[in-house]
């Protein structure tokens, strides 16, 4: 597909087509969306407009309710598929891959910590109305403060990053109830007076993720909507600690998508433009006959496939846990999934950064023209891979390999 996002929105490419009914059908759909996104990813990245159209495209494609219950019109797909969809979308546009990935986690947040009644209500709401999630839950900031006011809880504070929230319909908030150590998650409408987006996300990469800071001023929820609380007490489950491995694998998948996109763009450029080197003494008619270039692409592709294979295996594992009965999850199962995901994360980091830089070496000096825009892949990979230090993921895997210890749940593990 070579239509742009705007053209796709006006021409409704999926109107009249059957909705996908299988994982491979959804991946094909994601691939179509990635193709549309890739068409003008560089231009959109430079313009850094609010990605409202992109989110609408995800909604139109049916991807926003991929995990939503079938009875409410969702696809009822598994996380295993969702991870592959994230990767596919990121291959077209790393920012949008991040947005859909975070959306899946926030849409699942109610399952992680909510009561059965809350789960039913939230899933029905977002699935029937095709709503998009954002969040403002950066663990390294101070928590939002929560004040009790009768039957209501009132959130106040500031968060440095609120990925996707500005273009979302619903936002996940987290805070601590004053005078207690109770952490309380809540889902609130994103577009309300109490939420002020400061539009200050102007970073090297992942520029369309609307990850700027946000102020929360007197945002109210009923106590009854405090996720997981019954009679003001949290009903805690090990299952709730799956949030971190789940999102770490989301990261890894959009890193791999970025790598895939970079390799795709690099090879596409090389096929059309890269000229053979004339001073080697083993001169070829065209660059794609040069041994060393072929070897280089071969190495990158192999690294990527290896990381994707591990990502898929880890995706299958945690997907099984996420869709099983919540009470059945053991800390050991959670730990084994987490350690494998830590391994994927480091491989995905390495391959995304390597692909983002190596494609230049394999395409040549002219490929550094801004109009080519190959820099988007390294910029995107370099920016998000800073989320939490990958060395600590290696350490976790090392502790497992050496001592058989699985990582303990933290805000980053």
């Amino acid at each position, binding site marked *: 597909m070579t239509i742009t996002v705007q053209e796709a929105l006006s021409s409704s490419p999926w109107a009249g087509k059957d909705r996908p009914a299988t994982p491979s059908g959804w991946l094909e759909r994601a691939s179509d969306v990635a193709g549309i996104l890739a068409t003008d990813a560089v231009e959109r990245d430079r313009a850094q407009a609010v990605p409202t159209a992109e989110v609408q495209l995800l909604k139109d494609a049916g991807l926003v309710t991929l995990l939503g219950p079938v009875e409410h019109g969702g696809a009822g797909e598994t996380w295993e598929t969702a991870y592959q969809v994230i990767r596919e979308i990121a291959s077209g546009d790393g920012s949008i891959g991040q947005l859909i990935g975070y959306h899946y986690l926030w849409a699942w947040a109610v399952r992680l910590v909510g009561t059965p009644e809350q789960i039913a209500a939230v899933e029905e709401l977002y699935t029937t109305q095709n709503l998009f999630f954002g969040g403002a839950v950066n663990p390294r900031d101070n928590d939002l403060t929560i004040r009790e006011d009768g039957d209501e809880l009132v959130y106040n504070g500031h968060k440095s990053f609120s990925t996707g929230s500005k273009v979302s319909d619903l936002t996940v908030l987290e805070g601590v109830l004053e005078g207690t150590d109770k952490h309380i998650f809540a889902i609130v409408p994103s577009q309300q007076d109490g939420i002020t987006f400061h539009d200050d996300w102007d970073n090297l990469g992942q520029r369309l993720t609307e990850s700027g800071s946000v102020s929360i001023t007197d945002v109210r929820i009923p106590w009854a909507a405090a996720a997981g609380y019954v009679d003001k007490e949290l009903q805690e489950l090990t299952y709730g600690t799956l949030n971190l491995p789940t999102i770490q694998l989301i990261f890894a998948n959009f890193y791999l998508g970025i790598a895939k996109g970079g390799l795709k763009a690099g090879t596409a450029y090389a096929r059309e433009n890269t000229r053979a080197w004339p001073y080697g003494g083993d001169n070829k008619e065209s660059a794609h006959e040069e*041994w*060393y270039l072929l*070897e280089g692409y071969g190495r990158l592709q192999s690294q990527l496939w290896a990381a994707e294979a591990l990502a898929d295996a880890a995706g299958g594992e945690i997907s099984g846990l996420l869709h099983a009965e919540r009470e059945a999850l053991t800390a050991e199962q959670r730990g084994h999934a987490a350690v494998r995901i830590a391994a994927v994360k480091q491989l995905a980091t390495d391959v995304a950064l390597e692909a983002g830089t190596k494609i230049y070496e394999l395409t040549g000096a002219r490929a550094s023209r801004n109009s080519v825009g190959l820099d988007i892949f390294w910029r995107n990979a370099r920016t998000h891979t800073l989320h939490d230090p990958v060395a600590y993921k290696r350490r976790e895997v090392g502790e497992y390999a050496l001592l058989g210890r699985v990582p303990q749940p933290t805000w980053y593990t």
Partner: protein
Amino acid sequence: MTISQPPRSGILHEDPGPRAVPQLLDATREFAATFAATASLRDTARTIPSEELNALSEAGVLAATVPTSHGGPAGGATAAFEITRLLATADPSIAQIPQSHFVYLRLAELAGSPTLREEIFAEVLNGARIANAQSERGGATITDIRTRVAIAGPQATVDGEKFYSTGSLLADWLAVLARDADGADHIAFVRSDAPGVTIVDDWTGMGQRTTASGTVRLEGVRLPVTHLAPRAEAVTGPHGYGAFAQGLHAAIDAGLARGALTEAAQFVQTSSRPWFEAGVDRADEDPLLVQRFGELEVEVRAAEASLIAAAVAADATTSLQTDESAAEASLAVATAKVLADRAAISVTNALFELGGTRASDERLNLHRHWRNARTHTLHDPVRWKLQHLGRWTVRGEHPPRGPQL
């Protein structure tokens, strides 16, 4: 033993006289070419290279660092590293034997009594060799030393047991690490034929098989106190002592890497068949093979270049002994060690990839390169060199001074 009684290695020079460093390096190159031809045989039969070491001693190569004040060429780290590297290109076991010889010559220079210095330097100029007797079996870490020295007036007595004593089977002197009653460490320069000294040939390493590294037993071994050198200041002062010692190890790995790469190239030129997809007549014309050689050449040259830089920094500590100059020597040597370690492991692995299946023929014994590299690079953990470099880079911290850096 005195100078008039020749050491075991023999004195063949009528008038040995100190030879200048360039001549010594030329001589070492010639020796290396000869030693390379028989390295595999020695490894297979585990033949201790006594003739080879004697030839080096006789040519004055092992006296390269004797100070000019004592009639030597004062080649310093620059000469010692390059001699070691050249020998390692041919046979890294031979290269490792004089490692402690050079180190304890340096220790005698820094901490020895005038008597000891006179004696040792004169003997070394006449072909004598020193080996270490430092490490001990058991103990929580390598700093846990149980060998004791008892001092009574002008006499001292050493008792203990050492292992991994590289070169001890071919040495005239043993530099024995021993602790006195007050807990101070000394290097006792003990003659290897002194009563009470037993050297057992029991090194069974997978690689570096012919380093003559044995167990040394010391039972009531007597020596004059003038042969005791206090260890602490020499090792921890700003003299670049540890950097010098460690640089020699880096030189072994760098030389080993070069030797293996040279042999890989020879093998590809003489024995490998071209891969059919390359569409070339000879294996050495295969573009992807050539590419791989290029990558490995970079690794080996980086190791070699950093070794030269390390020698320069280590030698700078002989004229300027400050915390800064010592730190710079340690950091330069740490860099050389890391690069040499990587090059050695990388080349000795890749050798097979380059040569093809026939390179694994047992009769060729090409795996001795990997066995040697893998064994010798374990001498002390390279990860700590990275720590010291990193701490300097990020926190401006000087590396700790000790025997290994």
